[in-house]
């Protein structure tokens, strides 16, 4: 618990005149379920994109488990344990659920290069895939193509794929968007439980403040590329500056 899991130092990124990260400094601690909130255009998605390697930063450093990963390619960050899910459904629609889940597991087991072995012959991978499918409650549909699932189930699968990569730190970009209430409860329950088990540290980007405040232990507020609030949910709720630029508009109730 000494060194932070992820540390961001002086991170900057601008698209033309639009600054989406302005000398950001952040550190994430292992085991703390964190939410990142902010109004539209605050730079939440960009921050995730930069941290996970989708977009290079203009300047600054990203240190993950004491290792500088600022310029590491995506797949290597994933292998180190830095993973994400996406805002829109981002699964392998043409493949079966089992295959969807197997892909990151194969990567994690370093078994993805086999040319002449068979997927079905990878016993350890198969078992782990079934375990994850069970965990996300889709074990019955294991042999169906992902395209046969409902939108909500596809989102669940999305999280499943992210989990299958054995992340230490997992960014979930609006994990409940487009879900019905039943699915929403299912996925949140999953997240809570996993977080308590302590193997995965979650960072969630959300719009739904109920979820944010009920789930997270720490909330970070972004506004125009700046951190304007950082602390436990209660403290954020009470922060006048945050209320002014953000909560004031949306969470009047």
């Amino acid at each position, binding site marked *: 618990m000494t060194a932070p899991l992820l540390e961001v130092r002086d991170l900057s990124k601008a698209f033309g005149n639009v600054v989406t990260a302005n000398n950001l400094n952040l550190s994430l601690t292992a085991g703390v379920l964190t939410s990142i909130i902010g109004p539209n255009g605050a730079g939440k998605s960009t921050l995730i994109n930069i941290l*996970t390697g989708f977009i290079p930063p203009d300047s600054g450093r990203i240190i993950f488990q004491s290792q500088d990963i600022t310029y590491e*390619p995506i797949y290597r960050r994933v292998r180190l344990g830095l993973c994400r899910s996406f805002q829109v459904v981002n699964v*392998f629609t043409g*493949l079966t659920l089992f*295959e969807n889940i197997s*892909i990151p597991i194969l990567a994690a087991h370093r078994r993805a290069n086999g*040319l*002449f*072995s068979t997927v079905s012959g990878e016993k350890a991978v198969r078992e782990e895939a079934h375990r994850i499918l069970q965990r996300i409650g889709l074990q019955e549909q294991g042999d169906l193509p992902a395209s046969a699932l409902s939108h909500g189930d596809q989102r669940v699968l999305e999280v499943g794929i*992210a989990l299958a990569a054995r992340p230490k730190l997992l960014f979930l970009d609006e994990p409940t968007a487009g879900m019905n209430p039943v699915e929403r409860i299912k996925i949140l329950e999953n997240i809570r439980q996993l977080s308590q088990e302590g193997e995965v540290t979650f960072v969630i980007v959300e719009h739904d403040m109920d979820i944010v405040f009920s789930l997270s232990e720490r909330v970070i507020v972004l506004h125009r590329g700046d951190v304007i609030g950082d602390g436990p949910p209660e403290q954020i709720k009470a922060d006048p500056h945050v209320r002014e630029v953000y909560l004031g508009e949306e969470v009047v109730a």
Partner: protein
Amino acid sequence: MNRSWTYILAALGIAVLIGIGLFSSRFILYLTMRVMILSIFAMGYNILFGRTGLLSFGHAAFYATGAYGVALCTIHVHSHPVLAVVAGVIAAAVMALIIGFFCVRHTEIYFAMLTLAFGMMVFSLMWNVRGITGGDDGLSGIIRAPISLGLISIPIMKDSQYYFFVLMFFVVSVLLIHRIGRSPFGLVLASIRENHVRTEFAGLPVKRYRLAAFVISGAFAGLAGGLAVFLESNVTPFAAHWSRSADPVLVSLMGGLQTFSGPLVGSVLFVVLRELIERFTHNWMLWFGLILLAIIMGFRGGIVGSTAALLKRSSEQG
């Protein structure tokens, strides 16, 4: 399809091919060899096209590299046919590695155009390096020496003998490609086709896998080219022309992209149709074009895909 049925069909197929080799006329032998060689080309190509979802317009370059590799090895180094084929495949793979290194940075139309550009560079090179490639006359009179295995040597000079040489490579290629299709590597390629961003975020270096698929398909193209050299006893730079690159695309689409046997069936159609059309008309391009149209408009999954879908539908109804 049921697994035991697959085995039975495969066994039947091999039995038929052996039967053709033993009993049929020289022209049927020749056509069957053409089909097998085209199949190797198209099935290898389909690792990249059908599986990884990358449309290459430059694979004739690797076909031709394999062909020239075999020809040059036979002429200048050693006439052992297996050695020559191995040299051809390696040459094609190296060429694919070099060209692929640049091409896999892009996808879709950009990838297609990039492969077209590199393919035409290779074509131009083969045309112009006359001292090595013989210019547009190419290299001809490449002899099929016997395969020497220490004490014994197996002649492959006659077509009926060479047929089994081709058949052996064909069966091995089919097995390898089938195996690759079921391997973790094959699954990763399919995942790249489906969603390359997600694949990267699953912890897999997408470009490297694309490059690997590119090189593997290039190696099979080289094998096909090499076998063709021994069949035709010559090679010309036209083998590298972009219009030749269109062959495996046509074959794959005709047979069916996402099916394993699609390119096989497509190759049979491609060779046999053309041969049959030529028997009743000199305007073969017109008829070939019309058949292609019919396949695109009527059989969108290719012949194999559509038939499978049709069978499935009828069995569900029945």
